[in-house]
């Protein structure tokens, strides 16, 4: 990163955002305490019962009923027995789930931030959603909005005459200020009423005064390139760019 500082300015600016997340921040890993307590308790009960019975039989006592029953059942039933198959299916599912718990990182609701010195900070997903919602709610032309967030993307559906591209631009600045370590996509679209009619005029008089057509065009381009998939932005992008010219 420091080597890039000597490069010409034109090559430097696009390289910077790509170079900044380079120190890979690891995801948080859940300690899996609850699962360990449950599994250890069950195993401990089974092992103690078996050990107790084995020692008792060695000491001359008769075996417990449950152990002779179990041995008889295992000796009598074949693997194609329905009960055996059900038990094997349950064991397979349980084993797969425990393996998943062992391997998956967990703590998916915490999004790590870029490190500050020796402090590794993480923000909770609903917190990012709250920050974006609070920011968007005071923007002009936003009457109501819903924020949905997962680990990879934020989807914002807003109701009102606001221009989704300009809302997206404002929210992207807000999201950049959070300094998340990983990328988080941001899709803004209009939902419900007020979708076509009021959009253009309000955004034109309310947005930043100068360079209006340029920012409008670039924002529409950005939203079309960024959120190509959602139904809302894709048709609107070209239409808006044509209106601005």
């Amino acid at each position, binding site marked *: 990163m420091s080597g890039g500082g000597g490069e010409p300015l034109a090559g430097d600016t696009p390289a910077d955002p790509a170079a900044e997340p380079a120190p890979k921040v690891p995801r948080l890993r*859940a*300690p*899996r305490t609850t699962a*360990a307590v449950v*599994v*250890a*308790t069950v*195993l*401990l009960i089974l*092992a*103690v019962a078996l*050990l107790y019975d*084995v020692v008792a039989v060695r000491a001359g006592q008769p075996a417990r009923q449950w152990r002779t029953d179990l*041995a008889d059942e*295992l*000796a009598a039933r*074949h*693997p*194609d027995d329905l009960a*055996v*198959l059900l*038990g*094997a299916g*349950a*064991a*397979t599912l*349980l*084993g797969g789930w*425990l*393996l*998943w*718990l*062992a*391997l998956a990182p967990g703590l998916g609701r915490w999004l790590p*931030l870029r490190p*500050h*010195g*020796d*402090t*590794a*900070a*993480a*923000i*909770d997903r*609903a*917190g990012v*959603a*709250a*920050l974006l*919602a*609070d920011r968007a*709610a005071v923007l002009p032309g936003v009457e*109501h*909005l819903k*924020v*949905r*967030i997962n680990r990879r993307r934020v989807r914002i559906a807003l109701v009102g005459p606001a221009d989704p591209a300009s809302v997206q631009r404002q929210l992207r600045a807000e999201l950049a*200020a959070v*300094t998340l370590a990983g990328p988080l996509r941001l899709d803004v679209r209009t939902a*419900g009423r007020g979708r076509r009619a009021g959009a253009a005029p309000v955004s034109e008089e309310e947005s930043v005064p100068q360079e209006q057509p340029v920012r409008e065009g670039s924002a529409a381009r950005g939203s079309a390139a960024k959120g190509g998939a959602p139904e809302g932005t894709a048709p609107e992008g070209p239409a808006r760019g044509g209106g601005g010219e």
Partner: protein
Amino acid sequence: MSRTAVNRLLLGVVGAVLLVAGLLVLLGGLDLYRRLGLDPPSRWPLASPDRPVLGVRARTRWEDRSWWWPVVIGGLSLLVLGIGWWLLAQLRRSGPATVLLPTPGVSGLRLRLRTRALEEAVESGAVVLPEVERVGVRLVRGRRHPRLRAAVRMTPGGDPAALAEHFETGPRTGARASLGLPELPAELRIRVVAARPEVTGRQHRRNKRPRVL
């Protein structure tokens, strides 16, 4: 090895054993070896649906050997001890009770600080930071050094990056410097208090939520 690593390793072992055993029974019981044209080796367990799951001969194969029962009882005892240790490790407090402070220039003195005192000092330093509503600090075991784990509730509209920077330069650096510790890494978990709970995520199932008057 940290508790997280132990838990994940043992959960993985138990899960793998269950998965393999279940799959072996399923493969044999549904006769998938023959249907798929596979030919398991001759000693392969549960290869055919015609034989019992665990026959009397298989169960009592080594019963008359002199080593069998000592091995069974010893193995089960080790298993019980190990699982008991695993269970106790979950119930134990996850951090050290005291922190050993370096005493440069003084020999024969071991200076220990109660963990709770350190936690309270960092808490009182963090709660006065801007945009902080509530702080809880714990000291947990780290790989080489103990680490601070701070849970912070930030006021609505706050700046998480600035908060992390303030925490780093303020309470964390202050605690590390005043105790003379070589390292005191910290984890900061930030939650945000929602200003308008009706517009923040999670409640996206219905457009109109019922109003209770």
